């Protein structure tokens, strides 16, 4: 349960800034230089809400296993995007938590490491076999 709260809380927190300012987030996505132009705005609109909804679902225990699966998929997606830009040495703004550009320029390797830690947490929740506590709606196993 604690793992769900931590991971869910992180995802809700991360979504907050992006939900408020999709235009800035869209520009950050453009900066990743990975996605075709027609998808940039759609990603900027939908991804923050995916983070928000799955984060809340984890916290309140609404389909926690599926929410964890989706969070893991997103983390894998972030890790892939970060890795590609790390490998090709492309300078970019992560836009992970805050969208204030230039606020911090963390080394992409650190970010990837952090995402792997979160992924471990997500996998733990996914494979958790015992009874889940404080869940609104959860299907067994």
């Amino acid at each position, binding site marked *: 349960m604690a793992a769900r709260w931590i991971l869910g809380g992180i995802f809700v927190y991360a979504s907050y800034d992006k*939900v*408020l*300012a*999709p*235009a800035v987030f*869209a*520009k950050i996505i*453009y900066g990743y230089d990975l996605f075709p*132009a*027609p998808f*940039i*705005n*759609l990603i*900027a*609109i*939908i991804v*923050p*809400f*995916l983070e*928000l*909804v*799955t984060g809340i*679902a984890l916290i309140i225990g609404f*389909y926690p*296993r*599926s*929410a964890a*699966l*989706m969070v893991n998929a997103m983390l894998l997606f972030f890790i892939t995007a970060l890795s590609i830009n790390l490998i090709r040495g492309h300078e970019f703004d992560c836009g992970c938590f805050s969208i204030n550009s230039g606020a911090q320029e963390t080394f992409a390797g650190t970010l990837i490491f952090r995402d792997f830690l979160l992924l471990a947490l997500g996998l733990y929740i996914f494979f958790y076999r015992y009874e889940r506590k404080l869940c609104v709606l959860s*299907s067994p196993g």
Partner: protein
Amino acid sequence: MKAFKEISILLSVSIIAALAVNYFSPAGIALFGQWDTAKGVITANEKNHIVLNDLEIGDVTLAKKLYDSKQFVFVDARSQDDYDEGHIKGAVSLPVGQFDEKIEAFSEQYPPDKPIITYCSGRTCEDSHKLAQRLLEFGYLETGVFIDGFPGWEAAGYPIE
């Protein structure tokens, strides 16, 4: 199958919430943005967006002609640091982030009937548009935006300092 159903529900809730909030929020953006630098300054097309294409000067040689006419003041919308590192020769610094503090002094030296051309760091930067917008609101009659900005000017080998 159960997981499939659950994921579909979570996905649908996210997408519907995302589109609904984006539709009603004043900070919402269009479903498709303008991300091709060949077509001008990139923008997500916010509802109250500031990229006004009719102000844009997208041709470096045209900007140079206007520069040579000496009718226009070139105004640098970037930060003071960027300006100090290098700017179009004769350009005046007016960082858009410090507009309120600096506009008084600026307008005393350059009255609102003076035609102005703003620039920043090229087509991935909106500051020159923001600055032009602020200047128009302040009462300046004629402003243009040189969208290739300092990098475009420098690359063309035009005078800098």
